[in-house]
């Protein structure tokens, strides 16, 4: 399984790299350099990083196929868990800085505001994926694990809706993220329709 090229240091290095955004934000918060509205910066930035990590996670499978490097699979779980990590901070900043844990207000928000509904849905869909991310859960669930983890498609879609619906007028960035998502999904559809024919992919 383990190729000698995937040296032991790659995974820890990638781990640290994935921490850079949160370290950067923590440093910015500490030195008060997150701009005029730092709490908003925290929420926005962690939301964007959640989406980026979801897309990075979705990138692994097509990349393995194109580059023929199955070794990349060992980094997918970590990327997915970092998506959940940033999503958790993102949700946390909303619950704390926006609503100050006023659960009644939060419930009204979920009902009244479509972008909140979509965002909370995306987060809730990620929870079972994070919980079943261990090797043990993977073995115990067998084939069901693969089916369950297809929820990441729905979660990312809900995350994109969340982004579209919160934007006031400038849709450029959500369109870019949605386009990347579309490409990554298309790569999967093409694979599943050609894999049986050619046997290799």
């Amino acid at each position, binding site marked *: 399984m383990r190729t000698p090229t995937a040296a032991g240091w790659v995974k820890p290095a990638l781990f640290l790299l994935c921490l850079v*955004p949160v370290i*950067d934000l923590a440093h*910015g918060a500490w030195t008060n*350099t*997150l*701009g*005029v*509205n730092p*709490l*908003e*910066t925290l929420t926005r*930035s962690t939301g*964007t990083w959640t989406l*980026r990590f979801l*897309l*990075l996670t979705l*990138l692994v499978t097509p990349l393995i196929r194109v580059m023929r490097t199955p070794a990349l699979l060992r980094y997918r779980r970590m990327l997915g868990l970092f998506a959940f990590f940033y999503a958790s901070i993102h949700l946390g900043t909303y619950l704390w*800085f926006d609503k*100050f844990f006023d659960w009644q*207000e939060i419930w*009204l*928000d979920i009902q*009244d*505001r*479509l*972008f909140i509904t979509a965002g909370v849905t995306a987060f809730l869909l990620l929870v079972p994926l994070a919980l079943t991310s261990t090797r043990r859960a993977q073995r115990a669930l067998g084939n069901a694990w693969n089916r369950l983890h297809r929820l990441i498609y729905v979660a990312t879609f809900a995350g994109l809706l969340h982004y579209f619906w*919160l934007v*006031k*007028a*400038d849709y*450029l960035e959500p369109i870019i993220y949605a386009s*990347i998502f579309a490409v990554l999904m298309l790569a999967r559809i093409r694979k599943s329709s050609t894999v049986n024919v050619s046997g290799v992919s």
Partner: protein
Amino acid sequence: MLIRIPKRSDEKESAVTDPEIYRQRRVFMQQCAAGMAGLAGGLLVGGQAQAGLTLGTPRSSPYSTDEELTPMHAATHYNNFYELGYKKEDPSRNAAALKTEPWTVEVEGYCENPGTYAVEDLVPMDQLEERIYRLRCVEAWSMVIPWVGVPLATALKKLRPTSQARYVAFQTILDPENLPGQRRNVLDWPYVEGLRIDEAMHPLTLLTVGMYGQVLPNQNGAPIRIVVPWKYGFKSIKSIVRIRFVEGQPPTAWNQATPNEYGFYSNVNPEVNHPRWSQRRERRIGEFRKRKTLMFNGYAEEVAHLYSGMDLHKYF
């Protein structure tokens, strides 16, 4: 590219070669080149309109709040001015793209004195007042800003609106060649706003040329804008080039873009739910906890009578 450089890094980068300074330098060079024509006049008029120049000592006003001022840096670096970019930090960075010289305001419609006016014609500089107002953005944040200007009524009375003038329509500059935000149809340019004539004539409504004792910075709507403190910020239209007295309710930019979210009146109202933001609370910039939003942004005593008998949920 998948990974975008974080905004803070952008700032660090731009600190190396500040694009604003770069552009201002270019503008300065251009002005030098063009300076042959009317050197003395150009310097005098151009100098008066430069942001950062102090406006003497404007009179204080009983309409001012005594709340703590938002730091000037915050009020000038966290702006919604889509003509100069769609992110809060864009307008200050792109400020030099707004050309405020020369500047005229076209006055049209139902009034006795239509025509082309200079800023000084509309705003008598010897009558400037400082008004410290709360500013409540529809996005649920707020500031306290010391504006400098004259009541809009002072200017409008000089223009002598006729009895047919039931509304006043305003228009922002249209300059897609220079204004980066107008290169994409994010809004239906030019930005337009409007007030009912009694709202426009209300003593709180300020025709504004300065803030913090200085000439308005470009990103805050130089050289001339209005400030309507009991309405959400987007009603306080910036960089005005046209004032038109009309009979029917004029179209307004955000209402045209998303009619179910932004009404014509857009009075600050904690009881009227917005599809995006709960309007019950607001974050005063610089504060951690949120404050309760006040009816008419705390100006109910002065303006509530304008809307007596109106269903404010319907006319939001």
